[in-house]
């Protein structure tokens, strides 16, 4: 073990007492040595109690901070911040889902209008060409005349609808502002929780050192068959593809 953890003030005393003990023993001063040994024990106990005390206080503090149910009925009724955060994230899922569906409704409504305009324009262009090449008889021309009239009417009506749909699509993006705020709040909470947990872990570590407890931690094996969700930071990572081109390259290297 070359890593020397920070043992603090208590540890300094411990090493002081140890050297005093050595001194007494080497001088054959056993009565004094026994006294130092009991002092040593006391130091160890005090340090341990202190750290356990700190740990307990921190736990209480963490529980209080996150307003997790402590037992009384009225506290139970009050929602914890964590439960509240889950609700908030649920709200984000809800909002984004609604916005996506609203947008798709409007897009699906607009697309056939664009198709209609394009189809009619294509047909009219063809008829118009025949008129210009003087290949059209008078009755056909009268038909075209009426059709163009109708087309203009449809064109302005459909354009209005498409324009209206586009501005509604614009408005449907307002969720970003609301969900952004909610997510920021939850992010802050998560950071707080993490900080507190890290503190707890380091305090528990001190207790472990005092008592000589060792934990066997098993590294969890990642199961690639389970979905991992989107990779957020792909830059500089070789185990993750960063684009469709990467996927294609990888697959073709496998003989695809």
């Amino acid at each position: 073990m070359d890593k020397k953890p920070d043992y603090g003030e208590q540890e300094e005393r411990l090493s002081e007492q140890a050297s005093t003990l050595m001194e007494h023993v080497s001088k054959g001063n056993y009565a004094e040595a026994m006294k130092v040994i009991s002092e040593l024990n006391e130091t160890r106990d005090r340090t341990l109690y202190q750290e356990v005390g700190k740990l307990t206080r921190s736990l209480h503090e963490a529980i209080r901070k996150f307003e997790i149910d402590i037992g009384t009925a009225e506290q139970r009724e009050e929602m914890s911040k964590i439960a509240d955060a889950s609700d908030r994230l649920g709200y984000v899922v809800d909002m984004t889902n609604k916005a996506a569906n609203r947008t798709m409704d409007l897009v699906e409504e607009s697309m056939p209008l664009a198709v209609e305009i394009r189809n009619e324009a294509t047909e009219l262009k063809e008829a118009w060409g025949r008129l210009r090449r003087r290949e059209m008889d008078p009755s056909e021309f009268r038909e075209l005349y009426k059709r163009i009239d109708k087309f203009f009417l449809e064109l302005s009506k459909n354009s209005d609808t498409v324009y209206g749909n586009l501005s509604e699509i614009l408005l449907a993006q307002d969720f970003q502002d609301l969900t952004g705020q909610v997510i920021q709040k939850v992010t802050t909470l998560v950071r707080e929780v993490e900080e507190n947990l890290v503190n707890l872990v380091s305090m528990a570590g001190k207790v472990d050192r005092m008592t000589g407890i060792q934990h066997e931690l098993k590294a969890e094996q990642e199961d690639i068959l389970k979905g991992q969700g989107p990779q957020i930071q792909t830059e500089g990572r070789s185990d993750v593809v960063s684009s469709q081109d990467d996927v294609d390259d990888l697959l073709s290297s496998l003989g695809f």
Partner: protein
Amino acid sequence: MKILVVDDFSTMRRIIKNLLRDLGFTNTEEADDGQTALPMLKTGKFDFLVTDWNMPGMTGIELLQAVRADESLKNLPVLMVTAEAKRDQIVAAAQAGVNGYVVKPFTAAVLKEKIEKIFERID
């Protein structure tokens, strides 16, 4: 051509169905995970499967494995459209017999290209 679109998010199913319709595939059905999809595939006479990976219940890769293990479905072309971007996962999908792999977010052009490539190979 009858296509089954499997994704746990209804918005994603809708997007894929819209894109497929633009490509001329109008006969599509939906399922929200592998468990729902598998019985549909077994009885529905589907010609093509588009599936997500990460879904509750039965995941897309498990669905792919189940399809390849089923005598009546083993030749069904399968396109994976997923946010899963680990190289190991793509290799696992290839080994399980996927016909195409599209990572989200994707474009209409990429989806079109992959579908065309799959059917080119089959024809």
